[in-house]
C-alpha cells in the first residue's frame, strides 16, 4: 500500500507544472496588447477605408447600423459597438461570413459575400477596424472560447445549455444525466446551475457485486450544483479565471447518484491558444467541506469528512472540414483527484474525446468520449460520455442549420 505522502506526490507535480504555466501566462497577460492588430504596419490595407466602401452603407460608419430609410431590407442590423455582441466570436468567423456571405454560418442571406472583392489581408484589415467599435477591453475575445471538454471547466464565460449523459461500461450500472445552464453577465462573469438526474443500479445487491444481471435499478436526483465564474485576466491568447461551485446535498447516495453532501469547490481555470489551432485547458481546485465525492455514479468511494483536490488538463486541436465546414476538435483530458484527508488513493483518469459542431452556425455541438480509469481500474468503471451543447446566445436551437 502506498504511503499518503507518496500518493499525493503525483498530484503535487501536476499542480507545480500547472503553476509554472500559470505564472508564465500571467506575465504575458499583464502586458496590454492592441486588439486592432498590425493595422499600422506600412503598406497594410486601410481597414477603415475598406469598411467605408464595403460595409458602411448597411452597418453605418459608426457600426451601429444604417437607418432604415437608407437600405432596402428589413433584417435587423447588429450594433457593432455592443461589446456583448461584438466580442463573442473570433476574427476567423467574422471573416468567413464577410468572405462567403451570411448563409455560410447560417445567418441572413442579405449579408453578401465579399470574397471576390477583398482578399484575406483586406478582410482582416476590415475586421481590425470593426474591432475598434467595441472600446471596452474587459470583454474577452471569442478566440478564447475554446472547445468545451467533458469534465474541465472552461475559463471563458459562456451562455450555454449542456446536456451530458454518462453510462458505466462495467460494474454497477448507472446512466446519469446532467442538464447545465450557463449565463454570462457583465463583461467577465458567468453563473450556472446544474441539475443531475439518472438511473443507477444498487451496488449493494449481491447480483451487482458479483457482476450478475441488474436486479435493483432506481431513478434519482443528483447533487444540484450552483456556480459562479469570473474571467480575471485575458489577452488574445490566454484567459485566466476564478470560480466556485456549490453542490447541494440533494443527491441519492444510496443509488449512487450524487454524494448527498454539501460541497464547495473553488477553482482556477486557464485557457491557452497554441499555434496550429491547438489549445490547452487547465483547471485546479479543491473540494472544501466535502464528505465524499462522486463526479458520476459508480466511480467514487464512500469516504466521510474528507477534503478533495483535483487537477484537470486538456490538450486539443480543431480541424475544419473544407474552408467553411464543420469543426472537429479531438481532445485528451487528464483528470486527477485525491482526498487530502483520510488516506485515500489519488485517482487518475484519461478521457479521449471528440467535439464536433452539428450545424452551419456552429452553435450546436456534440462531444463524445470515454473515461478510462488509470488507477484502481478493477473497482472503478470505464464510462461512456456524451454531451449536447447549445450556445443559446448565438441563436435558437433550430436556427442556423
Amino acid at each position, binding site marked *: 500500500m502506498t504511503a499518503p505522502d507518496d500518493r499525493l506526490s503525483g498530484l503535487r507535480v501536476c499542480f507545480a507544472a500547472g503553476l509554472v504555466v500559470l505564472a508564465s501566462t500571467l506575465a504575458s497577460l499583464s502586458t496590454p496588447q492592441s486588439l486592432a492588430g498590425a493595422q499600422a504596419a506600412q503598406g497594410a490595407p486601410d481597414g477603415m477605408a*475598406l469598411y467605408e*466602401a*464595403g460595409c458602411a*452603407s*448597411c452597418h453605418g460608419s459608426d457600426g451601429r447600423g444604417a437607418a432604415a*430609410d*437608407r*437600405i*432596402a*431590407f428589413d433584417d435587423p442590423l447588429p450594433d457593432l459597438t455592443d461589446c456583448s455582441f461584438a466580442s463573442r466570436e473570433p476574427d476567423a468567423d467574422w471573416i468567413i461570413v464577410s468572405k462567403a*456571405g*451570411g448563409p455560410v454560418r447560417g445567418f441572413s*442571406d*442579405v*449579408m*453578401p*459575400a*465579399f470574397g*471576390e*472583392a*477583398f482578399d484575406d489581408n483586406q478582410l482582416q484589415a476590415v475586421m481590425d477596424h470593426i474591432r475598434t467599435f467595441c472600446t471596452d477591453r474587459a470583454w474577452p475575445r471569442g478566440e478564447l472560447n475554446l472547445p468545451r471538454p467533458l469534465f474541465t471547466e472552461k475559463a471563458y464565460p459562456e451562455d450555454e445549455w449542456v446536456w451530458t449523459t454518462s453510462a458505466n461500461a462495467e460494474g454497477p450500472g448507472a446512466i446519469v444525466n446532467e442538464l447545465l445552464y450557463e449565463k454570462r453577465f457583465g463583461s467577465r462573469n458567468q453563473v450556472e446551475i446544474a441539475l443531475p438526474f439518472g438511473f443507477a443500479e444498487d451496488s449493494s445487491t449481491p447480483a451487482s457485486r458479483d457482476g450478475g444481471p441488474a436486479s435493483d435499478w432506481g431513478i434519482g436526483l443528483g447533487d444540484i450544483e450552483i456556480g459562479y465564474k469570473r474571467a480575471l485576466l485575458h489577452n488574445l491568447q490566454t484567459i485566466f479565471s476564478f470560480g466556485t461551485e456549490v453542490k447541494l446535498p440533494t443527491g441519492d447516495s444510496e443509488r449512487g447518484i450524487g454524494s448527498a453532501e454539501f460541497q464547495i469547490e473553488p477553482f482556477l481555470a486557464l485557457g491557452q491558444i497554441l499555434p496550429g489551432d491547438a489549445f490547452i485547458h487547465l483547471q485546479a481546485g479543491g473540494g472544501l467541506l466535502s464528505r465524499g465525492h462522486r463526479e458520476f455514479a459508480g466511480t467514487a468511494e464512500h469516504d466521510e469528512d474528507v477534503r478533495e483536490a483535483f487537477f484537470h488538463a486538456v490538450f486539443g486541436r480543431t480541424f475544419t472540414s473544407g474552408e467553411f465546414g464543420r469543426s472537429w476538435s479531438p481532445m485528451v483530458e487528464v483528470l486527477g483527484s485525491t482526498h487530502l484527508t483520510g488516506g485515500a488513493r489519488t485517482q487518475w483518469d484519461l478521457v479521449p474525446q471528440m467535439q464536433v459542431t452539428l450545424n452551419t452556425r456552429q452553435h450546436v455541438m456534440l462531444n463524445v468520449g470515454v473515461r478510462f480509469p488509470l488507477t484502481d481500474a478493477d473497482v472503478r468503471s470505464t464510462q461512456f460520455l456524451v454531451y449536447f451543447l447549445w450556445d443559446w446566445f448565438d441563436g435558437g436551437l433550430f436556427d442556423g442549420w
Partner: protein
Amino acid sequence: MAGRWGRGPFLSCALATVAVGAGWTFDERTAAEVAEPGAVTGRIVVAGGQVRFAGDPPAGAEIDMSADAYCRDQHDETLMDRPVRVDPDGGLADVLVRIVNAPAAGTAPDAEALLDQEGCLYTPRAVAVRVGQPLVIRNSDATLHNVRVVPASNPGFNLGQPLRGIQSTRSFETPEVGIQVRCDIHGWMTASIHVLEHEFFDITGEDGTFTLPTLPPGDYDVEAWHPTLGTVSERVSVTAGETPSLTLEFSSG
C-alpha cells in the same frame, strides 16, 4: 441582347428580314438548295416578332436616390421606376421570348453574357443565358452594390461589389426562367436572369421586338414571360414556304 447563339450562316438574312418587318420568314436560299418534289427539309428563320402591351401601362413610381449621393449624381433627371416599360407604339421591353418545345440543344457558347450595374441601374434589366454559359456580373459604379440572386432551382448567391470595376462570373446548371436579382441597398434595382437549355430565345428590346434563331419545320409553342405581367404563349406551325407573323400581346387586365 443575349440569346443570339448558333444562328449559323443565316444571320445576315435574318437581320435583313427584320428590317422589312416583323413576321416569320422562309429562308429561300436554304429551301432552294434542298427543293425536291415532296421534300420539306428546309429551315425557317424566325426573323422577327413583337411583344406588345395593350392598354395603358401602369404608372411608375419616382425613384428616390437621395440615400446614396453617388447614385443621385449620376442622373440629371428624376427617374421613374417602371416595371412595365412600353414604347409609344406599344412595344413591351424586357420580355423573354422562347420556344418551349425547342429542338435538341447544342453546346452552350463560351461567350460571356453581361449584367452590369451602371448609374445604379441594372443594364440590361433582363438577361438570358444558356445552361453553363458564363454570366459576368459587373459593378461600373463607384458605390457599393450587392447582387442578390434568388433562384428556385439553382444555387443562390449574394455578391458584395463595393468598388467600380469589380466583376464576378457565375453560371447556372439548371434551366430556370425568371431568377430574381436585386440590390438590398438600392431597392429600385431589380433584374431577371433566365437560364435556358437551348438557343431559341431572345429578350425584347425597347420596341418590343425580338429575333430567334433558325428553326426546322414543325409546330412550336412560343412563350413570352415578363416579371410582373406573367406569361402569354402561342402555338405556331412553321412550314417551308410560309411566313407566319407573330405578335404576342399582354394586357393590363
